[in-house]
């Protein structure tokens, strides 16, 4: 019976203080009756090996005690959906971007790696860990308190079907956004066609700026990009909802534009700067600094471009072939 006593002692530990003895007396009676029946059936005293399956079938001490306790939850089912949305938003729109930004800085910024060598690199992530801990802790605490307050019943019970938000169509392309986009690309094209691509020397504020020989190629590429932008915007105006075709065209346009910006950063675009109060050395220094700054931004361009492309690809996958023929 030592095994039964140990089991009852373990169950007792988890029980509410004022009911411990009563519950244990009753459970003990039941277990001893079961053992007694088994002993009568087998014709001998049960060994520990034979008692063990009876206790195992009864359940773990914590589980058995748990059934006597009232159902409790930190955040009840009424508020849990809101809590879940807030936590997911916190992770996907705040903590994850922060982590990606940290990764981006770590990968693309040599200066940051020099300033934070070895373990110091990971120590620079400490504010992120703190933000994770505090935001999750305080949100959970706030919801747990809300769940126990009168505000919960006010939030859950006072609602009006007419006040519910209208259904939002994620496939719909806003006409306002398309018109804005079209205006910007048309204005850009209007500026680009005014520029003589072979004219590489510019004068302003008494300074003379000479651009690299690749400049005309960029002008042509930018003109083609704006042309593509106008075509895609017109398509959106004609059919203001995402289809596989329009989403793929958007992806193609974004690959092209972010690729172009990347090449622009790496092109050492500024060839010379002179005039004004600038000495020849100052001009060279400024040109080198500008080109270095542009080149070191190339990694960031790739990083941001990758995020944009991620959303473009996700849009293609979400649209799906079945919605291809849906009317706007």
């Amino acid at each position: 019976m030592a095994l039964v006593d140990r089991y009852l002692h373990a169950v007792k530990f988890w029980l509410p203080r004022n009911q411990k003895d009563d519950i244990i007396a009753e459970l003990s009676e039941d277990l001893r009756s079961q053992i007694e029946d088994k002993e009568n059936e087998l014709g001998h005293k049960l060994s520990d090996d034979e008692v063990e399956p009876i206790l195992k079938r009864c359940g773990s001490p914590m589980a058995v005690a748990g059934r006597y306790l009232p159902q409790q939850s930190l955040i009840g089912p009424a508020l849990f959906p809101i809590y879940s949305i807030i936590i997911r938003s916190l992770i996907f729109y705040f903590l994850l971007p922060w982590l990606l930004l940290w990764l981006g800085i770590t990968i693309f910024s040599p200066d940051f790696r020099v300033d934070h060598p070895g373990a110091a690199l990971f120590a620079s992530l400490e504010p992120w860990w703190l933000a994770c801990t505090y935001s999750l802790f305080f949100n959970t605490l706030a919801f747990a308190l809300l769940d126990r307050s009168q505000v919960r019943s006010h939030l859950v019970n006072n609602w009006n079907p007419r006040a519910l938000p209208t259904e939002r169509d994620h496939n719909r392309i806003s006409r306002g956004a398309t018109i804005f986009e079209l205006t910007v690309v048309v204005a850009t094209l209007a500026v680009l066609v005014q520029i003589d691509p072979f004219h590489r020397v510019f004068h302003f504020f008494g300074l003379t700026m000479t651009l690299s020989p690749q400049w005309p190629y960029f002008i042509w590429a930018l003109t083609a990009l704006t042309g593509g932008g106008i075509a895609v915007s017109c398509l959106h105006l004609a059919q203001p909802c995402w289809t596989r075709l329009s989403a793929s065209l958007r992806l193609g346009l974004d690959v092209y534009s972010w690729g172009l910006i990347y090449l622009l950063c790496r092109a050492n675009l500024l060839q010379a700067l002179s005039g004004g109060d600038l000495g020849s050395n100052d001009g060279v220094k400024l040109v080198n600094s500008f080109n270095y700054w542009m080149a070191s931004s190339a990694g960031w361009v790739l990083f941001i471009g990758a995020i944009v492309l991620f959303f473009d690809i996700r849009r293609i996958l979400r649209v799906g072939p079945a919605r291809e023929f849906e009317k706007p």
Partner: protein
Amino acid sequence: MSPSTEQGNDNRFENLRQELRRGSLPLAVLAALRTEHYGYTLRKTLAVHGMAIDEGTLYPLLRRLETQGLLVSEWREEDKRNKRFYRLSPDGKLILKQLLIEWKSIHTSLEDIF
């Protein structure tokens, strides 16, 4: 049918079966306690009638029903051991009568649907 699908179906059936039986347990317990029982004999009685219930489920249920005033209990000595005997309270008898009517109504409705 693949073995994993079969096992999935078995699990789903078992979950629904337990849910169905759990819902009818209070009624079975109240009905069985028209005659006085202590926990172990009550379990045996229910098992004989095809409503086997483990101790971890029965005793918390008995406590809940007693807290609701549907059962009364007393500790008494029997066969040199202290046992807690349960029986229906007057309120319990009334509720049992109403629940049985409800149960028959559900049964009739289900028969109609089937």
